[in-house]
């Protein structure tokens, strides 16, 4: 990595004697140039990772990332930071496991501590439907050489001693499953690390620039974007704008098969360490982890079917999630919730992401990342490959938009709700 200022123990000690006055901003804040080879709209995790891999893997350095707000202010800063690869289908398992592998080496690669903590994710299973679903995932993953195991009820209790005692359970614990390489990572650090990495390769990160129009040339290919900070010419335009994808794609008269649903999360007051794994219970629709600061980070299921762009939660879902949480952990009933937030998750019809060429020449889409945080490294890597070579990366070959018209669905379900 090319960088004026590599972070290390020596720069830290050096900073300590010089009152930490030598630190510079981690990335530049440049004026937009008039022309770029590639303009990426959306400065979230996926957009920045795409810019980073475009420069690093494909030698394309004349790249701009155009962000409407500020870096880290969107869904990249609103997720619950869980990373795992226990998916259903071969394509998804291999894609998300590649992502997890990239996460494992990312702190070193970016010279930025992403605080990856592979503390295991344990699924607590209360119904035969969930047992069957997770067993299916385990068999499929093991066949592909990826570790994911079933647990007996006793093993589940051994990993999570604070679980409710048997006699108080409405639904007894039938078993569990565990991915030991799963865990959490610092979500802001991923975004900042990729931003710094991309910037060090010469990528311009342009914040506070809202895209208002996309113009096409006489040949129908994209030619120029108009932003609140002026016009920028581009040979290729790639969008990774999270729940704004449909709106941005409509600027080139493209309709994307996407729907946005509300999801919320909350954080309890800080407590002493009680949980050293990520706990997920599909049958109660709740998952949680214990953050380094001592807060419990709690998430629930999506509010499916109601299209929503609200940046906030809903009380019925909060009530459902909390009642599920207290069923598993009655001892948490006196905890206070400190913060609550919500946002929109973007879904394609079959629950798998879209990393795709489009009918508009030079216009690329990365969308439908409702489990997008864990996918950032592989999502960026494969999207960069698609933009640079105009053909999909083998890991993301199943994510093209044409799969909807050829009925090659890649059906995926979350792990927070029972799927079968």
């Amino acid at each position, binding site marked *: 990595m090319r960088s004026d200022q590599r972070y290390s123990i020596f720069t830290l000690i050096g900073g300590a004697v010089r009152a930490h006055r030598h630190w510079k901003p981690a990335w530049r804040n440049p004026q937009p140039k008039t022309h770029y080879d590639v303009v990426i709209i959306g400065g979230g995790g996926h957009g920045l990772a795409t810019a980073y891999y475009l420069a690093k893997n494909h030698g394309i350095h004349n790249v701009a990332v155009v962000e409407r707000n500020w870096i880290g202010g969107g869904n990249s800063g609103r997720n619950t930071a869980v990373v795992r690869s226990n998916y259903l289908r071969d394509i998804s398992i291999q894609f998300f496991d590649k992502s997890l592998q990239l996460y494992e080496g990312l702190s070193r690669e970016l010279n930025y501590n992403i605080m990856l903590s592979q503390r295991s994710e344990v699924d607590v299973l209360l119904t035969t439907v969930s047992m069957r679903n997770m067993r299916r995932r385990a068999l499929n993953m093991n066949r592909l050489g990826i570790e994911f195991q079933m647990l007996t009820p006793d093993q589940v209790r051994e990993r999570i001693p604070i679980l409710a005692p048997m006699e108080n359970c409405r639904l007894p614990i039938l078993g569990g499953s565990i991915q030991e390489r799963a865990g959490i990572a610092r979500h802001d650090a991923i975004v900042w690390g990729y931003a710094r990495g991309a910037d060090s390769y010469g990528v311009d990160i342009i914040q506070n620039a809202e895209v208002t129009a996309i113009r096409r040339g006489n040949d129908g290919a994209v030619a120029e974007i108009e932003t609140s900070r002026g016009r920028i010419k581009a040979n290729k335009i790639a969008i990774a704008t999270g729940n704004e994808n449909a709106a941005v794609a409509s600027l080139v008269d493209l309709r994307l098969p996407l729907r946005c649903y509300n999801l919320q999360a909350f954080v309890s007051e800080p407590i002493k360490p009680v949980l050293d794994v990520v706990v997920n219970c599909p049958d109660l629709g709740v998952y949680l982890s214990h953050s380094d600061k001592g807060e419990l980070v709690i998430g629930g299921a999506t509010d499916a079917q*109601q299209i929503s762009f609200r940046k906030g939660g809903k009380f019925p879902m909060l009530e459902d999630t909390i009642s599920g949480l207290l069923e598993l952990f009655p001892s948490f009933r006196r905890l206070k919730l400190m913060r609550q937030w919500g946002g929109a998750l973007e879904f394609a019809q079959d629950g798998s992401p879209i990393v795709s060429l489009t009918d508009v020449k030079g216009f690329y889409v990365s969308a439908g990342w409702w489990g997008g945080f864990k996918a950032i490294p592989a999502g960026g890597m494969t999207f960069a490959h698609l933009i640079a070579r105009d053909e999909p990366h083998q890991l993301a070959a199943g994510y093209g938009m044409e799969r909807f018209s050829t009925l090659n669905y890649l059906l995926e379900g979350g792990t927070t709700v029972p799927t079968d």
Partner: protein
Amino acid sequence: MLLIHCPWCGVRAESEFRCTGQVKPPRSEFVHKSDEAWLEYLYQADNRRGILEEYWCHEKGCGQWFKLRRDTTTHEIMDGDTDS
């Protein structure tokens, strides 16, 4: 908590209801037209900020189906169509 006006039961809590998606023209208008129209029916939704018309069912109450208009940014409910 949203309060939703069920045409039979009156104002009830949102948790009693289920939204099943957007109001679209009937399937027969798409199915025999063209492949593009059929794909449009299957996959596309008005995925946007603003007011959408949706089908709701009073699932944990009387079971009545009805349409209502809802703002996707604020979750505010405009008016229900009570005679559907």
